C-alpha cells in the first residue's frame, strides 16, 4: 500500500525497535563490534544476529569478521545505502512528529 501520508515513507526494514537501534548505533559510529552492539542495545546474541541478517540482506549493513589472535570478532558498519536509508527514515519521523505537534 502506498500513499501521500508521510507514514508511508517509513522504511519497514528499519521501523522495528531492535533494527532501529542497530541502525542508530552504527550511524553514530564508523563501525561497531557485535558485543558492543549487544551490550548497548541490551538484546540477546540470537536476537541481534537475526536482525543483523535482515539488515544485511536489505543491503543496509556490512558484516566483517576478523581474528584478533585466535579470537573472532565481528565488526558491523552501515553501507552507503544503509546510511542514506537511515537519514531518510529519520527525516520521515521528523515530518511525522512535526505534523502531530501542529
Amino acid at each position, binding site marked *: 500500500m502506498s500513499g501521500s501520508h508521510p507514514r508511508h515513507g517509513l522504511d519497514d526494514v528499519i521501523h522495528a525497535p531492535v533494527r*532501529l537501534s542497530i541502525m542508530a548505533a552504527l550511524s553514530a559510529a564508523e563501525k561497531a563490534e557485535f558485543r558492543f552492539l549487544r551490550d548497548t*542495545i541490551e538484546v540477546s546474541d540470537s*536476537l541481534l544476529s537475526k536482525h543483523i541478517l535482515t539488515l544485511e540482506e536489505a543491503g543496509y549493513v556490512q558484516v566483517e569478521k576478523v581474528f584478533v589472535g585466535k579470537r573472532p570478532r565481528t565488526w558491523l558498519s552501515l553501507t552507503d545505502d544503509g546510511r542514506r536509508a537511515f537519514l531518510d527514515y529519520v527525516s520521515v519521523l521528523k515530518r511525522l512528529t512535526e505534523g502531530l505537534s501542529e
Partner: protein
Amino acid sequence: MEGKFTPEEALQQIGAVDRRVRRSVETAGLVYLLAGTVTTVYWTTILLGPRWLQISAAILASVLVGTFARYHEKLGVRDRAIVRASRTGGAVHLAYGAMTVATLIAAFFLRPGDPGGGWTALAVTLAVATGLPLLYAGGRILRAPR
C-alpha cells in the same frame, strides 16, 4: 523489545542509542588524553627524577601501557577519529614512535654527568613532545563532529 512503535518513541530511541555510542567514543578520547599525560609525566621522571622514582615510574608505566593496549583492543566502537588515531603507520603512531626513539637516544647518550638547566629544558621538551601525539589524538576524538 519487539513490536511497532510511534514516531516519537522511535526518535527517543535513536537519541538514547546515539548518546550511549557517543559516551563510549568520548571515553576513548579521554583515555588517549590520559595516556598522553602519563607519557609526559613518565618521560619527565625518567629523564630528570632520582633512581628510585625512575624505577617506580617504569613499573607503573608498564602496567598502564598494558591496560591501555587491552582497553584499545576491547574497544568495540570506532568512529573516524579513533580509526585515524589508532591506524598502524598513521601520523599518530609515527609521531609517537619517532619521539619515543628520540627521547630514548637523549636518555642514553645525551644525559650529562652533571645535569644543568639546559638538560632540564631539553628533557621537559622531549617529554612533552612524546606525549603530544596521544594528546592530539585524544583532542581530535573528543572534538570530532558527530
